[in-house]
């Protein structure tokens, strides 16, 4: 595999986004190409990850298990996509299993090799710290917004959907989990709103007709009595009296 090729792909990986070409080629040099056969397991859920994979050729599936223990495909990744980039910097267990769907070629960047690059090149370290901090800021901002929106939804105020959409499409890194969460959030709110409007429309309309002839007749039956005439007089006098008090 061509070094230039690897370099181009690495550039698209968000944690490397701030690196100069020169710095990036140092990183690219420490990576190694690997061939995998169909069915090979690249990483296993729960195992501690210590490398990043860059897919050169072929497709892999990212899977987990559902509650019954059956395989559940979360995603598929192909040429140019990176998986497991976080493993270069921390040592947490893999969140899913990755299996090759066909014979494929990947570039692997090992954590220990990568750390050597970091030790030698403070500019690479700094750039990576910056890209992380950017990400964190981005996530925090949107988490704060999501809290605010959630409160609005609870009050039945959906106006923010229309006001906020432009910001969403400007989100800078497409692969950012915060962006994914927000787009899922917005889809949810839109569906809830639609369903609510649907329900409102299903409300039944009640209409009545008053029988005016009957109304008049009943009114006359009551008001034509001796009692009523006297009451009307007394009420009139009473109101006058209370007015004067």
């Amino acid at each position, binding site marked *: 595999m061509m070094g230039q090729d690897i370099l181009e792909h690495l550039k698209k990986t968000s944690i490397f986004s701030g690196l100069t070409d020169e710095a990036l080629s140092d990183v690219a040099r420490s990576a190694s190409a690997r061939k995998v056969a169909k069915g090979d397991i690249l990483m296993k859920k729960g195992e501690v990850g210590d490398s990043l994979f860059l897919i050169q050729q072929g497709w892999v599936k990212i899977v987990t298990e559902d509650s019954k223990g059956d395989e559940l495909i979360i995603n598929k990744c192909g040429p140019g996509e990176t998986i497991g980039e976080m493993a270069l910097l921390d040592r947490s267990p893999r969140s899913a299993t990755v299996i090759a769907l066909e014979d494929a070629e990947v570039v692997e960047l090992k954590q220990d090799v990568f750390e050597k690059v970091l030790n030698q090149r403070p500019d690479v370290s700094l750039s990576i710290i910056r890209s992380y901090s950017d990400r964190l800021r981005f996530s925090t901002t949107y988490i704060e917004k999501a809290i605010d929106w959630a409160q609005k939804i609870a009050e039945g105020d959906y106006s923010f959907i229309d006001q906020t959409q432009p910001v969403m499409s400007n989100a800078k890194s497409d692969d950012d989990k915060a962006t994914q969460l927000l787009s899922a959030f917005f889809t949810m709110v839109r569906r809830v709103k639609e369903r609510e409007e649907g329900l*409102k429309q299903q*409300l*039944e*309309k*009640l*209409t*009545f*007709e*008053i*029988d005016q002839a*009957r*109304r008049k007749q*009943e*009114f006359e039956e*009551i*008001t034509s009595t001796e*009692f*009523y005439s*006297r*009451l*009307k007089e*007394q*009420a*009139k006098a*009473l*109101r006058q009296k*209370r*007015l004067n*008090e």
Partner: protein
Amino acid sequence: MKGKIVSIHSFRGGTGKSNTTANLAAQVAMAGKRVGVVDTDIQSPGIHVLFGLDEDKMGKTLNDFLHDKATIREIGFPIGENASGAAGRAKLAGKNLWLFPSSIRGREISQILKEGIDFNRLNEGLQSTIKEFDLDYLFIDTHPGLNEETLLSIATSDILIIILRPDQQDLQGTSVTVDIARSLDVPNLILMVNKALPKYDFVELRKDIESKFNAPVAGILPLSFDLADNASNDLFSLSTPDHEWSRSLREVAQAVLTLG
């Protein structure tokens, strides 16, 4: 004159007059007003139950007053000093709220029905109740329909609240009451819908009723099993303030407070 007489009326029985009257009076008292509640449903009194007053505790009644056997002072039962036994009612402790109950003794009921009520005597009673207790509002719970004592309470009221259920029969009957209220020059007429099925469009319903009667609908209160279950011996708007019924009831109370 200061105190306002607020009558609560409905064309048919069981519409929710007693519950509404008791809760409205409680809300207005909670707002710091001096409030009285008179049960003029002498044929089938019921509101005392909502205030936790039973036969043992009941002293002199409206019937005694009408027969010249008691003064207004004697029949006023201070709810604020007897606010216990139920969670909602307990909130009324210390409030200025009095109930003027109607007798629940069969003999006394049939006696007064036979003799009829003297307009002047009842009227005199209502006026002196306001004066002697220095009331801001006197609420009157009535017997359904348009019999003589109900007509009488309509005639003396400053504010008439007509409660109706959203159905053809109630709307037809209410139309006659509205005409009577106008004929008797009642200064303020308010409509209130109770027992509305939640599946109906309340906004449309309000518009329709307001345009038919040319009078404001101060609240549309839903039919609620919670209320049917819990309202028989406590004040629902105090025990369950966050319920939609209670919220709408407070809108009606607000309309009353705004008028006087």
